[in-house]
């Protein structure tokens, strides 16, 4: 009993410390600067928001949110079609997700590269 309460308390504590940081790193929110850095993708805020929602809701049930910055932009559409069958994505959701992930990728590059 004490063990469970202790463990639960510990997890809640850990949650508070790390929660904001993890989501922001793998799935950055759609801000003006974020859209600007990914302007080559020609995606509007609504599409990017929709893509982020798909990413956060559909890509977490089997594994951790992938760190998209690790993948080459050319591989991103392929990864999304590979996984979209598993995540039951509609063509629109798939497209929004690709745009969002490409924008995440563009944002992760240091400026000037």
């Amino acid at each position, binding site marked *: 009993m004490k063990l*469970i309460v202790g463990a*639960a308390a510990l997890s809640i504590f850990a*949650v508070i410390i790390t*929660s904001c940081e*993890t989501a922001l790193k793998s799935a950055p929110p759609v801000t003006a600067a974020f859209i600007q850095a990914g302007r080559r993708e020609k995606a509007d805020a609504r599409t990017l928001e929709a893509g982020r929602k798909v990413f956060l809701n559909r890509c977490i*049930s089997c594994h951790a*949110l992938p760190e998209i910055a690790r993948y080459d932009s050319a591989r991103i559409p392929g990864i999304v079609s590979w996984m979209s069958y*598993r995540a039951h994505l509609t063509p629109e959701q798939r497209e929004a997700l690709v745009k969002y992930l490409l924008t995440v990728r563009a944002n992760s590059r240091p400026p000037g590269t």
Partner: protein
Amino acid sequence: MKLIALSLSLLLPILAAASAFAGSRRFTYVYEVTTSPPGDVEVENWITWKTRRPDDRGFDQVEFRHELEFGITDKFQAAIYIADWNYHRGLSTGERGLTLSGSALELIYDLTNPVADSVGLAVYQEFQGGYRRFESETKLLAQKNFGKFVAAYNATLEAEWEGEGLEERQGEFQQSLGLSYEVSPRLLFGAEFVHEVAFPDWSNTERGKFFAGPNISIRHRTNWVTVTALAQITRAGDEPDFQLRTVFGFSF
């Protein structure tokens, strides 16, 4: 009994063929907050082997559950337990043999997201009916994903009515905690902890029972299997000292 076995043997291949693979589970005793995507239909098969009770050394029971899961909206999932049945032997179970314990309806509604929000929450309601038996299970599911690490906690209130006029009542409070680490999307390790307190007749409280043990989850293509081994830490006479639960989903 033969009829049950026959209908199950007809049902199983159909279930297997309809199988998909949306949410591969990380745990087998603990529920996760994430639900199946809308339009998804998934089959999960459960096998739980329970053995040796402190009061009945010869006790052995194998429980089977065949579950059909439907994603309805982004936040809402329904599931049907088509059949829960078991094979048992041992002094405390009466005659050895097969028992069909019932069917159930399960509903899960997501409130918050375990990655984006500070804690992911969902509510769970299950109704189970069987021969002279009705059961309701209400759970609060909580979960937090920290990168490759997931912590999930369930609090469950269970009410059971049994007997000819359903006049025997009993309640139970259960808490469970699951911790899981993803080595790769194909291989995850973790541990599960279960704590139960029963209230026979809803009046007196029995001593709490506590179980703990490791788990592993493996995914291959569109198939997955998760196994948990639980040992009883307390010495409750009517609970198994050891249980092993396997849940798997597969498709062709």
